[in-house]
Every structure is written in C-alpha cells, then in structure tokens.
C-alpha cells in the first residue's frame, strides 16, 4: 500500500436501489472518495418510484428552494433550474414537476466526481463476509464490496390484501373508456396524483376516492416557520401529553396572527428526535390514530394543485368519502361491484366501477413486502423489522440490526426503509442529511479499515 500522506485509496461501496435516496447517497459517497456500485433495475438512476412520472401535474410537495441535493448548498437545485432556463426566480413558490426533479438527480449523479458503476439488476441477497459483503443478483452473478447500503425505498406492488386493485400507471392499468366510473382507494397525495393523471387522460366518468377518515391533504401557503429549540419541546412523553402541548402552541401562534403551518414547519427539524424518544406505546398510538391527521397537515400540496383537486370535488367530478370497503366482487363486465360502509352514518353503499386504483398510502408490513432482498434478509436473520414493522430495524447510525439485536458494521440502510427509526425520512430535505452523514461515517470507517489492512 502506498497511501503515505495521501487519502486512503477509494474503497467500494455497493448501494442497492438507485432511486433518489440511493443516487443521493452515491453522490455523497463519491464526493467523499468512495467507488460506488449502484444496483438499480430501472434504466435511469435517480428516479425511483417518486420521480419516474412524466406527468407535468405530478409535482414536488416541497418548494424548489428546499430541494437541493446538498443541505450545505441550498441553491443547488435553483441554480440547475436557472441553467436549464426553466425558471429564473421565486423558488420559494415553485413546486417543480417530479419528473424534472428526477432529471436533476440523474444529471447530478452523472456529473459527480469519482468512479460509478451502475448494474441494471435486482439484488436477491446481501451477505456479510469476513472482508465485506457479497451481493447476489437475479442474473446469477455475485458482487463484492466493502460495505452495502440498502436504499430500496417504498413497496412497489399493490397491496396483496386488495387483489382487485391496481397501481396507476402499472402494466395492469390498461387503457380504459374515460366515460366509465372508477374508484381510488386512498384520499392522500397519491390519490391527488391519480386524479390528475385521470383528468389528463380525459376521465369523464365519476371518480370516488375512499379512505377510512376521508381526509385530504392541506395546501401550502406562506412560509414563516416559528423558531424552536430542542429545550422547548417535550420529549419522551405519552402521545396525549405531546398532542396537548402541540395544540396549545398552535393556539398561541394563531392568537398572535400566525398560522398552524408555521408551527408544523417549525417543528420539522425536531420530528425525528421526537419520534425516536417516544415510548413504544406512543409510537403505536401515533400510527394507529394520529398519523392520518398529522400527514394531511404536514405533507401538503402545491397551492395550485390543491385548488384543482378542490374544484373537482366542488363540481362533483371527484367524490371523497370516509368509508371502509366491505365487499368486492366482479360485476361481470370486467369491473367490480364494491360495497362500502360510511364511517359516520354506518350506511352501506354499493358502486359499480370499471377499475379500482390502489393509492392507499405506504403503510404495510415489511415482511409481507415483495422485495426479494428484504425478504431474504429477514428470513436469514441478517435484518429484522422494526417495532412497528414499517421498515428495517436500524441504529441511529443507519446500521442494519440483525435478529439478535447486533448492529452491522457493513450493512446499512437509508431512506423510507428506515422509517421505523426516523419516521420522517421520505422527503429529500431529510434524506439528503441522512445520506451525507452516512457517507462521511462510511468513508471514515472504510479508510480506517484500509489502514489496518
């Protein structure tokens, strides 16, 4: 070895999943001097589920001014938009199309310094070895690296508990007569996306969107988050106590002429810490009861999108109901007869629809997922689901924890897969911080391994 005073030679990091999280981590790791192997089956890395859409109405839910890949270079995305002559100013009020954001991540990845190899395959397993990790791919090949990071994101398949429902834009979503009625399961941001796509396809038939509570996301407006310190925030309490404090704070701020959004946004830097410190009982109760309310206030729509959705509700093109599906049977004409029960009246109603779309959010049991890698990790005990089974159990440092509670020194995870530990880790402003910190730790650890090798 001839390192001397030089930086240790780059070591190899395998990243499984080349959506936005995987690509951002790759960029950070390359900047820090790693060689990266990115395993992504899609043709274009950096897009994943979220940024593969070509629908111009599918927008970011975060202002362009806060969407830089680099937390330390906040204008990086805005500068890119300027260079591309897409927009010159007012990035605080610009919610970019998500496909465009995918372009930005992909270009930034290609321009990143260092060595990157992209393997268009699906990983089947990651096995820790004495000198690193071994990754088996669907084509029968095996990859070796010094460490691996899983960035496989959200579940892609429609819920297996709703075999009649399809994902919008999937191959099951075949052309449909726009005059026919359709149903959307879910009333959140994915529902809004689905409705916008249907509208673009010329949907004329009625659209029913259905969820347990029938809550729709709020819209963005203004931006003046209140300033909070950690010392202000009750940590480690029961959920009821926390919610009481939070509502009180909103009341105070509104009395002084502020807006609830200022409080929700002011709390944002502490959300992960609040979550981490809650007792298991508070986490469970939050997921069961509070999360739908939190989500519609926290994850808001671009104002112009919200206006369109609400106009559709007003003119009857989109009907939103709080109900549960009770029974689904084929209607004999290729569609479905769906019986659902209204939440408040308890009344039953039946609708005949040509198609049911699954926009039911992203909460699902990890071990029931379709990702072969995650399944194999849980089966072999290399990883385990977190307390709520919404992701992989990871340490604060993103190390995957095995079935015996041991944190790995060579297998890590980022992005939505780590929701159990961090809760809010599906938006870029959170993911970029997580990826940068992990890349720095990894490079430090790998360099140390080099010296001792």
């Amino acid at each position: 070895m001839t390192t001397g005073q030089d930086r240790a030679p780059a070591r190899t990091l395998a990243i499984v999943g080349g959506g936005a999280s995987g690509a951002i981590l790759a960029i950070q790791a390359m900047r820090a001097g790693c060689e990266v192997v990115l395993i992504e089956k899609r043709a274009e890395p950096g897009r994943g589920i979220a940024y593969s859409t070509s629908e111009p109405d599918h927008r970011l839910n975060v202002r362009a001014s806060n969407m830089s890949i680099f937390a330390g270079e906040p204008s990086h995305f805005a500068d890119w938009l300027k260079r591309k002559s897409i927009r010159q100013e007012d990035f605080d009020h610009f919610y970019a199309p998500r496909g465009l954001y995918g372009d930005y991540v992909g270009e930034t990845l290609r321009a990143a310094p260092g060595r990157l190899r992209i393997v268009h395959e699906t990983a089947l397993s990651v096995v820790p070895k004495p000198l690193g990790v071994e990754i088996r791919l669907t084509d029968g090949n095996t990859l070796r690296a010094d460490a691996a990071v899983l960035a496989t994101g959200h579940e892609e398949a429609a819920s297996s508990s709703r075999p009649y429902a399809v994902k919008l834009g999937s191959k099951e979503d075949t052309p449909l007569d726009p005059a026919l009625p359709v149903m959307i399961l879910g009333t959140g941001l994915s529902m809004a996306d689905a409705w916008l796509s249907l509208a673009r396809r010329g949907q004329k038939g009625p659209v029913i969107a259905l969820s347990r509570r029938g809550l729709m996301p709020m819209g963005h407006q203004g931006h003046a988050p209140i300033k909070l310190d950690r010392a202000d925030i009750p940590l480690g309490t029961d959920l009821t106590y926390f919610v009481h404090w939070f509502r009180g704070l909103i009341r105070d701020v509104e009395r002084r002429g502020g807006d609830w959004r200022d409080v929700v946004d002011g709390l944002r830097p502490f959300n992960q810490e609040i979550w981490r410190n809650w007792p298991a009982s508070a986490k469970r109760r939050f997921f069961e009861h509070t999360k739908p309310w939190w989500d519609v206030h926290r994850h808001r729509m671009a104002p112009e999108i919200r206006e369109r959705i609400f106009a559709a509700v007003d003119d009857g093109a989109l009907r939103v109901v709080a109900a549960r599906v009770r029974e689904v049977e084929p209607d004999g004409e290729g569609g479905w007869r769906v019986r659902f029960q209204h939440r408040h009246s308890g009344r039953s109603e039946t609708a005949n629809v040509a198609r049911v779309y699954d926009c039911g959010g992203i909460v699902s049991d990890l071990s029931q997922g379709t990702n072969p890698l995650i399944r194999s990790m849980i089966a072999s005990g290399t990883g385990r689901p977190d307390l709520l089974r919404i992701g992989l159990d990871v340490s604060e440092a993103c190390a995957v924890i095995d079935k015996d509670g041991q944190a790995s020194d060579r297998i890590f995870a980022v992005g939505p897969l780590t929701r159990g530990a961090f809760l809010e880790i599906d938006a870029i402003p959170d993911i970029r911080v997580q990826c940068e910190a992990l890349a720095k730790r990894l490079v430090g650890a790998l360099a140390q391994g080099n010296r001792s090798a």
Partner: protein
Amino acid sequence: MVHLAGLPAGDLAFVGEIAAQNRIPKKFLDAILSELRNAGFVQSRKGKVGGYRLARAAEEIKVGHVVRVLDGPLAPFPCASRTQYEPCDDCDEATCQVRHLMLDVRNAIAEVLDRQTLAEMRATGVPELGTPDALVAQAAAH
C-alpha cells in the same frame, strides 16, 4: 423519580412513603406525581395495594425530559424561551446580548440533561443532584 428508579422492578411506592423518606409535603408530591403520570413517565394504581412506579425502565427515561414536564421549557430566564417567552422590563430583545447568550445556555442545559438517564443519575449518586430529596427539592424550588 430517582426514588422510584431505585425500586425492584414491578414494585409500587406509596406517596406517603416517598414523602416521608424524602421529607417533602405529601400534597406537593401528589401534584408532581400527577403531572408525571399525565406525561407518561410514571404509572399509578389505586387502592390498598396502590402506589406509583416508573412507566418505563429507568434506562429509557432522560432527566431532561422529566424536567421539561415539571418546569416547562428549559429556560434559565423567562426571556430565553421560545414558547413561553416573556420579555424583560427594560430590554430590547433583538439586540440584547444577554438573551442571545442565555439561548445558548439553555441549549447547553438541554444537551446535558437530555443525555443523562434516570438510571445513570441513580447510579452516580452525585450528592447535590443524585439524592431523591435534592431532586424534588430542586423541582420545588422552581
């Protein structure tokens, strides 16, 4: 809390017992314990065999989190709080260097208190901090 942390797992302590051992008024202790119960740090059971115990392992409870519940936002001065802010009488808060310094001080306080668990506090037994009566007396002083 430290008193409760010293109990064998599952045992309950009577309010009267804690009050007597730590020489604090029972009424006052009642108020504290009910606050702590509301926040989910202690559990109570009523009746003859009733009493209080920690709701979680002492290793999982951070001292700073308990203090926030009893005293509100950690703040050395009323003006050095964001949520319960009260300006001083003769002071322009935007340019007040003392306030800026005090905001740093409170962040440092949070840093220290949020690191310390109840279990560690019990184990170290620092005389002026670690004994149960000193903790409650401190709480009482606020």
